[in-house]
């Protein structure tokens, strides 16, 4: 009896300890965000005064108004990021699943070769291809352009591989029935296979959108006309201009972060799925 009570008691303590540890970690996670958010509503004088107050004493929206006046390209950067991220996402969904489907289902000459090649591509760090990509885009006249940001990124070896794994485990019967009904291979893909692949597509979509939205290395290399900057690049150049105006920088950071957070909150379930997907299926 006593032993059992003790055991239950220690279990309760363990639980409390776990919750405390998690809460502490959650606070560590949140503080930088809340601190940045609070600063974006403070006048500069209050920020540099050196008192760590989370609730602004002199609440103001001026920083947000000011950044749009001081930096007229703000909306343009936002627009650039949206165009690029959405195009990259849509093209990836289509082409990665087409390639994955072909590698999983269609029997054509050279299938093993292409599959092997795509696997090999996964092992090459992007830095190796970066400089030649810059030169190739320069030759095409695609520096500082949407197509320069979109076309090199419109397929992704990791997700081709993921889609292949997905389609390999896909029941064949439906496709066979559709073929008997006289659908073409592309018709089967378009009307039977793609609709049933929705969970895998959603997971992929969120993942690709986020990495395009946050991409820094490719834009820093191929975009140097401020009009064509994406958000991360714009934010960096904004920081260069307003070195110690932390009130503006934090307001700008918040404007850039909120859309991504909204998408994340909305698609959270799929995002988590996609992470688990890439993790366990590789």
């Amino acid at each position, binding site marked *: 009896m006593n032993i059992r009570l003790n055991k239950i008691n220690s279990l309760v303590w363990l639980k409390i300890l*776990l919750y405390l*540890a*998690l809460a502490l970690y*959650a606070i560590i*996670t949140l503080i*930088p965000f809340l*601190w*940045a958010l609070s600063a974006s509503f403070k006048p500069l004088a209050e*920020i540099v005064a*050196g008192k*760590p107050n989370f609730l602004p004493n002199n609440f103001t929206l001026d920083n947000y108004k000011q950044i749009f006046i001081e930096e007229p390209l703000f909306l343009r950067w936002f627009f650039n990021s949206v165009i690029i991220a959405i195009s990259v996402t849509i093209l990836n969904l289509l*082409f*990665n699943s*087409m390639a994955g*489907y*072909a590698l999983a289902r*269609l*029997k*054509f000459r050279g*299938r093993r070769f*292409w599959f092997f*090649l*795509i696997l090999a*591509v996964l*092992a090459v*760090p*992007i*830095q*190796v291809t*970066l*400089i*030649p*990509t810059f030169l*190739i885009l320069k030759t095409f006249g695609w520096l500082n352009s949407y197509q320069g940001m979109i076309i*090199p990124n419109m*397929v992704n*070896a990791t997700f081709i591989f993921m889609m292949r794994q997905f389609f390999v485990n896909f029941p064949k019967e439906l496709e066979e029935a559709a073929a*008997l009904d006289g659908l073409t*291979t*592309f018709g089967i893909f378009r009307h039977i296979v793609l609709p049933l692949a929705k969970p895998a597509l959603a997971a992929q979509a969120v993942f690709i959108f986020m990495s395009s939205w*946050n991409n*820094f*290395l490719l834009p820093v*290399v191929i975009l140097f006309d401020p009009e064509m900057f994406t958000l*991360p690049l714009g*934010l*960096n150049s904004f920081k260069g201009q307003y070195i110690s105006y932390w009130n503006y920088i*934090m307001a700008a*950071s918040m404007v*850039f*972060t909120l859309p*991504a*957070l909204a998408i*994340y*909150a909305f698609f959270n379930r799929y*995002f988590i799925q996609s*992470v688990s997907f890439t*993790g*366990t299926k*590789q």
Partner: protein
Amino acid sequence: MSLKQLTRQQQNLAGYFFLAQTILVLGIFVILPILSAVFLSLQKVQLLGGIEYEFVGFRNFRQLIEDERVWIALKNTAEYVMIVVPSQTILALFLAVTLNSGIRGKSWWRVLLFLPTVTSSAVLTLIFMWIYNTNGLLNDFLSAVGFPTYNWLGDPNVALKAIMIMNIWSTAPFFMVIYLAGLQDIPKSLYEAAELDGANGWHKFIHITVPMLNPVTFFVVAMGIIGTFQLFDQSYIFSKGTGGPNNATLTVVLLIYQAVFRNLQMGYAAAIAFLLAAVIITITLIQRRLFGGEKN
């Protein structure tokens, strides 16, 4: 069955119709660049209006060995990898096990902890620079509890560690989610059997959870190594592209960037990129050996 009714030619046609875009993009923006990187690394490239090439053999690679900044960048990057990868892996594992221990509101905790992972590295770096700044939160906190304040960003001994802390914090939740998925695959019966043998929580963790997660850990460590070796965004923003203070945040990728865009040495930059690829592939292979390979 009926898929086989298509003639051989139709099958080939369909296959290449589905793969065409992939072959085109990978061909132009991956395979061709790899080949031309090999070419570039053996050339001296002059960017004066047009592009001029001059074959120099292995001179770029010899220059690598003599270049002091290459060694500094390698040392910084290696130090960064050796501290960040184990820390983020252990932190991710503990967070995942904690979240998986039957805690209430699991998905809410997960959403919350995941925030830094979805935030752009540019924004995170700026927020952290500001926290470390002379008038920042860290100094405010230190002076509030009576410690002296410090110029964190200006000290070469601190700069890289500041980036390390930030990255452990922002990457661990990503791997936590991968561990969480792995935890679901461990059969419950293993734990029940261990409980019958009188094992406590810690024993179960060490003797069941950790070994059963071995393939996941292999993947997490491999991804971690590949990701950390490619550190760039944070160093670039932190140091405005210089790798300062005093080369403290100079990484291999930042060095590649500088070689191309500051010194206009494309051939040399390609050589550094191959050095990076060689290092990453070698270490991944060694890691595969140590883990006894993937069990797939």
